[in-house]
């Protein structure tokens, strides 16, 4: 039995080597467990994913920012002041003096102009946030200009509501990059895109140290930051795909923040005296899209009946408590003009009455494409059960996210259960997709959510388009309020919930800001005791 004893000795050796190396998180480093596999680029002109935008928000600054407690209040971040010309087309920004990038280079008007020109010329996924104001590759030199060391003049193509343009400048795509550094890393006229995907050239609280895709990114405090060097030297964000693993790491103290805990895990960590839960409303909306190509779903009474057949409070309580709250309009709370009307609740009798009026007293059969992820699957099943009470037989088709999305984009679904997050902090971002459909034909050029559900709305489209040109802020607000009320009554969208972002943290760490969008999840104030 010699071999057995060899194996035994080996095991002893293993055990001796294995005595735990206690490595709690270092004092000057904040460690987060988070799902970050959506990051495909850290170039602010290209990134358009939640995690990438959050990282960028901590490495870059913009001309303008909004107060996260009241998003309708704008303030200058790099800009000291700004003016709008009488014709409403020309904006002049003055920069704050003496600011520097992390590299030590001074922040000048040239950097600002270069950054915006760059985002327009590259025209990657988020590029439209700027190009919708008429900027093109060919006119950027004339429309976005540095007229002095601290003066930038921008000319848009129409007299838009100033709030609309300024709100768009708060998006990640309008981040100001260090033009000297980026130009030094340009390759074949790529505006430094290949380099900036994996490096940073900003003036935010942190600078990028490393990014390993699907693994982690590490940020290092920027000593040149205008807010002073952040207390924490380093922020390490690790990709921990499994929420149960995130919970274990947090409870054990190996991470300071767990960012993707689900309802059950949140309930479980609540009893842990060392863990505290922070939360903040996010702009993401959970909705059902009813394809109007389906003759049953195209009946107005059916659309309304289905809105009465969702158990909003039951789903909140049993499935998404703490992570979603009921919300029934297309503008999330926190946006200019957002309203919080909730006319719909589960009312099977009323729904049956409406179905009978539509000529479907015995209900009908319909399918729903469902991403196989929590909590979407559970919500879909809850809906299936309540619809059944009124005779609507719902068949669920499970699929991967990209797969259901591909089908949705091709308008081949009956019903799609999806999430929508605003692209920038202005009401137009959601109105532009939920309440605009300029061409309902299959080969339309523009394909907003209204198009995806084949909802032809020539009149509503005109109202929505007029709202972006309303320069009186109060009037503009009123327009969106009326639009939402009309929309929730007639639209083929059953809007159900608004997301609440949750971050569980160790008791000795605090200060993560959870803003209304990924652009405003900020690390700078995190302190660790």
């Amino acid at each position: 039995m010699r071999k057995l004893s060899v194996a035994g000795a080996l095991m002893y050796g293993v055990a001796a080597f294995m005595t735990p190396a206690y490595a709690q998180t270092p004092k000057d480093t904040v460690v987060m467990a988070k799902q970050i596999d959506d990051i495909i680029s850290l170039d602010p002109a290209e990134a358009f994913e939640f995690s990438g935008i959050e990282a960028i928000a901590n490495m870059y600054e913009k001309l303008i920012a909004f107060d996260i407690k009241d998003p309708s209040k704008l303030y200058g971040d790099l800009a000291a002041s700004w003016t709008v010309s009488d014709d409403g087309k020309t904006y002049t920004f003055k920069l704050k003096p003496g600011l520097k990038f992390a590299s030590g280079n001074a922040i000048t008007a040239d950097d600002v102009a270069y950054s915006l020109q760059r985002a327009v010329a590259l025209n990657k996924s988020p590029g439209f946030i700027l190009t919708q104001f008429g900027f093109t590759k060919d006119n950027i030199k004339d429309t976005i200009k540095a007229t002095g060391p601290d003066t930038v003049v921008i000319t848009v193509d129409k007299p838009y509501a100033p709030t609309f343009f300024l709100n768009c400048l708060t998006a990640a795509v309008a981040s100001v990059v260090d033009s000297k550094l980026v130009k030094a890393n340009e390759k074949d006229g790529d505006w430094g895109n290949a380099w900036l995907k994996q490096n940073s050239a900003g003036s935010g609280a942190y600078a990028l140290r490393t990014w390993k895709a699907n693994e982690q990114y590490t940020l290092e405090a920027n000593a040149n930051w205008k807010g002073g060097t952040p207390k924490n030297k380093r922020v390490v964000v690790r990709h921990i795909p499994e929420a149960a693993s995130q919970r274990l790491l947090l409870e054990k103290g190996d991470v300071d923040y767990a960012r993707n805990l689900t309802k059950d895990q949140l309930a479980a960590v609540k009893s842990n005296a060392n863990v505290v839960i922070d939360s903040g409303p996010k702009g993401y909306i959970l909705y059902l899209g009813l394809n109007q190509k389906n003759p049953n779903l195209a009946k107005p009474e059916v659309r309304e009946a289905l809105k009465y057949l969702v158990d909003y409070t039951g789903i909140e309580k049993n499935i998404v408590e703490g992570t979603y709250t009921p919300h029934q309009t297309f503008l999330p709370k926190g946006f200019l003009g957002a309203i919080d009307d909730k006319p719909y609740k589960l009312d099977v009798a009323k729904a049956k009455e409406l179905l009978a009026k539509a000529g479907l007293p015995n209900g009908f059969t319909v399918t729903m494409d469902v991403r196989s992820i929590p909590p979407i699957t559970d919500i879909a099943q809850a809906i299936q059960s309540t619809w059944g009470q009124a005779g609507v037989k719902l068949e669920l088709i499970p699929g991967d996210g990209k797969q259901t999305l591909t089908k949705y984009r091709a308008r081949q679904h009956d019903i799609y259960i999806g999430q929508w997050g605003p692209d920038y902090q202005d009401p137009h971002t959601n109105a532009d997709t939920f309440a605009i459909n300029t061409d309902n034909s299959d080969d339309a050029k523009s394909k907003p959510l209204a198009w995806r559900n084949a909802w032809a709305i020539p009149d509503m489209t005109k109202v929505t388009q007029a709202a972006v040109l309303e320069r009186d802020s109060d009037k503009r607000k009123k327009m969106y309020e009326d639009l939402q009320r009309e929309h929730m009554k007639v639209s083929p969208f059953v809007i159900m919930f608004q997301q609440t972002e949750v971050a569980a943290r160790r008791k000795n760490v605090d200060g993560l800001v959870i803003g209304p969008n990924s652009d405003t999840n900020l690390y700078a104030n995190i302190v660790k005791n």
Partner: protein
Amino acid sequence: MASARSTAKLVSAEVTTFAITMLGLLLVTFLIGRVIPIDPVLAVVGDRAPPDVYDKARIALGLDKPLWQQFLTYLGQVARGEFGTSVMTSNPVILDIKRVFPATLELATLGTLIGVSLGIPLGVAAAVYKGRWPDNLVRILGLFGYSIPVFWLGLMGLLLFYAHLGWVGGPGRVSVAFDDLVTTKTGVLILDAILEGEWEVARDAFSHLILPASVLGFFSLAYISRMTRSFMINELSQAYILTARVKGASETRVIWRHALRNAAAPLATVIALSYAGLLEGSVLTETIFAWPGLGRYITASLLQADMNAVLGGTVVVGVVFISLNLFADIMARVFDPRTR
């Protein structure tokens, strides 16, 4: 001369098999990538991109060309050693694989070592004490190995050994305190740490590695011990064993020198295949343990329709599988004189 000629023939036969297998593998993976109902352009530009951005990306991916042309273009690239760039990571696929494969390699190697070092003695014991408790133990282990879901075992292992007992490190390859302390040479973290004399890092890395490796090792053990048992039972019933005993050989000698030696040839194949299976990357284990390995890389890429990455990863898996098969063939020749 005759033997040299037959060796040359053998090598050329193996090379041909390799080439055909790889071509088939590439073709099937390529076609799967094209028939799955996921739009690859989505992976590049996201859901919100305006139509002109979408079209630009579609043309850049070559998706406007006919299928056969896309495949030929791809074959040409592979032949030149280019696997393209991953959409997900923006890195050349080769670089990505260089990063993720060593992570899987260390996991699979330790897992297999655990499986072999425990599985073979257990299997031998089960065969020798057939019908008695060691045998029953191995059969129960085998049953668990086949029926316990890996994610459950992984989570329970973390709960017990990491959260409660604190014997091992948590999910991830190394604690944050030890991040970036060693430069990457081999990519196998423990090896790199030892090469630089960073013993603390090596120890920490090991405490993170041992649990997922044990989980994989358990499944490998269950399989290897069961196979060892049946090979050994077969050998122990042979006439030459009786002869050896009659000649007065000790029981230890009979079991380890005579029977096991003859069971070694089929066992080598079993071990090689089990190792190859682990080298493909165990997606669930890698997910639970936040292990940045090949399995998770390929799966994540597939779900993102990031086809360059999927095809690159598949080529690696194919090469590994075919090489280990070849290795098992050679080992069988070494152990079994009849195949020479």
